[in-house]
């Protein structure tokens, strides 16, 4: 009997809690609510946290006056909220997708229908972004994406979806521009190399959406177009307990260049296993994701000397862009690390939203749609070396893609004096911050 009574009490308490939380008053009124859907739990939680910081810092810069940034010419730093909306503050409302497409879509519905957001951002994994974009499309609420790189997203003809960030095909182009540049002698500090020393490629990608998209693009489009030979195209099981045989296969393929698309856990395992085998390709490149993650750098340290990674943002850009340096410094004071690609790209997304809101002068969806379609932010407002943010088409069938977005390629370089590893920019060549280490020095 006691047991039953205890149960009733427990259930009553849980119900009470639910009712209580449900009736909590919502936050202050004079704000513009933007829903942000991120993988805050689940396997990609570390990335989710990183992304979230980018949003929070940029929202803070828009909502409050930062004189030192404004002095450098950053327009939104002088704002105290959105000027044309009477100084209304942007209020980001974070929702957790758990990295699942269905949860992402439900959260989007909740944000739109229950919490009355005027716009959406997110949702990192392209599969989640697809379902969120479908919900946004159905409800006519703008979704400005700054963190998903699947090329498909901007070819669906959606009218309420805009992408600030470059997509994978643009990033892959950058890689082959770098390879061609090596042959042509354009790479910083490297005399022209014979094409035969980098002609044979091994493409190693994880088997989910991100990896297969990159792999197929390189293998089917770019390698034949630019005259490279793919000697090994390996799609491997993501989150494998062991990658020994994959590594053996890779080394035995005799490829000159190893190209990876991996999340952080697999990236760490691959590099460690390759190092132990003493693999010696002439070049190693990673398609961002795992290769720029701070945990990756912490785990491998000096062993990364010479490894290349594509990135949208590299902290060293501050040497050529004072705004980037100042924002990076602010970020570092607040969170203790450099801006990463993840946090940087979300800052660009918030920036696009801030300008669009200000240009629209209203939170009406149609007005916002028009403002986003006509958005034109000059390059000097950005922390990346782009010409600006302007949505349009770069390829047939594409729509609402930022036509100025490009990537960068960085190289980890070990400094024996400081004992630290820095990511130096080697591409675009004109923004290079150091001479490129070529060929890859190996692990001995």
């Amino acid at each position, binding site marked *: 009997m006691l047991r039953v009574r205890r149960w009733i009490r427990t259930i009553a308490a849980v119900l009470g809690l639910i009712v209580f939380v449900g009736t909590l008053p919502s936050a202050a009124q004079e704000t513009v609510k933007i829903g942000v859907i991120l993988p805050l*739990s*689940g*396997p990609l*939680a*570390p990335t*989710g*946290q990183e992304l979230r910081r980018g949003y929070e810092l940029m929202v803070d810069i828009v909502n409050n006056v930062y004189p030192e940034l404004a002095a450098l010419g950053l327009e939104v730093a002088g704002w105290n909220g959105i000027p044309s909306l009477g100084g209304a503050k942007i209020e980001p409302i974070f929702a957790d997708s758990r990295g699942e497409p269905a949860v992402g879509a439900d959260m989007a519905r909740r944000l739109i229908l229950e919490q009355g957001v005027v716009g959406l951002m997110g949702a990192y994994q392209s599969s989640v972004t697809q379902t969120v974009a479908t919900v946004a499309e159905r409800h006519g609420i703008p979704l400005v994406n700054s963190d998903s790189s699947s090329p498909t997203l901007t070819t669906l003809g959606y009218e309420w979806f805009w992408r600030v960030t470059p997509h994978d095909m643009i990033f892959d182009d950058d890689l082959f521009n770098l390879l061609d540049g090596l042959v042509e002698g354009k790479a910083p500090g490297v005399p022209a190399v014979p094409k035969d020393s980098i002609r044979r490629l091994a493409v190693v990608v994880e*088997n989910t959406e991100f990896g297969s998209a990159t792999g197929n693009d390189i293998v089917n489009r770019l390698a034949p177009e630019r005259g490279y030979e793919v000697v090994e195209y*390996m*799609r*491997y*099981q993501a*989150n*494998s*307990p*062991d990658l*020994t*045989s*994959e590594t*053996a*296969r890779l080394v*035995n393929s005799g490829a000159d260049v190893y190209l990876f698309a991996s999340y*952080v*856990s697999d990236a*760490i*395992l691959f590099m*460690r*296993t390759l*190092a*132990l*085998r*003493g693999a010696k390709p002439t070049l190693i490149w990673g398609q961002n994701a795992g290769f720029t*993650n*701070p*945990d990756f750098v*912490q*785990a*491998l*340290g000096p*062993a990364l000397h010479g490894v290349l990674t594509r990135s949208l943002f590299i902290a060293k850009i501050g040497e050529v862009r004072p705004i980037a340096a100042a924002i990076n410094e602010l970020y570092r004071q607040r969170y203790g690390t450099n801006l990463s690609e993840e946090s940087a790209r979300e800052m660009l997304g918030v920036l696009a939203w801030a300008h669009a809101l200000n240009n629209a002068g209203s939170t009406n969806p149609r007005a916002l749609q028009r403002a986003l379609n006509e958005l034109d932010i000059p390059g000097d407002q950005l922390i990346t070396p782009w010409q600006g943010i302007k949505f349009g088409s770069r390829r047939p069938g594409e729509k609402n893609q930022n036509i100025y977005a490009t990537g960068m390629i960085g190289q980890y370089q070990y400094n024996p004096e400081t004992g630290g590893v820095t990511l130096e920019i080697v591409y675009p060549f004109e923004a290079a911050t150091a001479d490129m280490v070529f060929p890859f020095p190996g692990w001995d």
Partner: protein
Amino acid sequence: MDVVLDIGISGVLMGLVYALLALGLTVIFGIMDTVNFAHGEFLMLGMYAGYLTYAYLYPEPLAGVPVAGLVGMLLGVLAYTLLVKRLLSGPPIAQIFGTFGLMLFLRYGALAVFGPNLRSATQGLVVAKRLVVGGLTLDAAKVVAAAGSAFLFGLVYLMLRRTKLGLALQATAANREAARYMGIDTDRMNLIGWALGGATAGMAGALLVNFYYVSPTVGMVFSMITFTTVALGGFGSVPGALIAGILVGLIEVFTAQVISPQLKLAVIYTVFFLVVLFRPRGLLGAR
């Protein structure tokens, strides 16, 4: 030929590691017919115990092995006394979901406490070191983990065969009722089984720290393969787990080499399915 030998050896090494992960699970199952879904999370907490010892007490991952063993044992004891003991009086489905809940609890508890980051040991006696034997290059950390696995297997096997406690455990596994009539405290045997299972999982975790990253979700990576190993070897069979572990390691590397790295789990699961179908008690099933 070289390739075959090369990956064959790495398959055996990894297989011994899988066997070690399976050891604790099979011991628990053998004694009380309960599948512990939270086993991968025991392993994960063992890894954290090992890593935190390395990071804050002594910069050598191997020093974390005994600590992790103790932590794992404590975890096993707590899990049994606070939860599993109660589950035993319910239907089998309660046991499945009870330990499933425990798995979620430990995984997300670790996420709340340790944060989502991946941590890795970067220095130590065998961390990122090569061992060259007769022209073959081996990962020293894996060799150590495999040796540790073989050693622990020997220890558990001897304990079960040669000590009074071991015989009592076996008697409980063979026939719970009969064991009780013979004056064996079966409840205590269960407790010891969970302590033993937890301790081996903990030590396995600490050995993994030498070459694997630590994260709150790392248990997920290993739990299905551990499960497969136990089923393949026969639920409750200690030598079976050893053989099955090596088999799984070999299937994994050769599938990746010969067929496709993408299909290695599918092939392991298919073998698992066929074994369950044709020899439900596993290759060396105890009963």
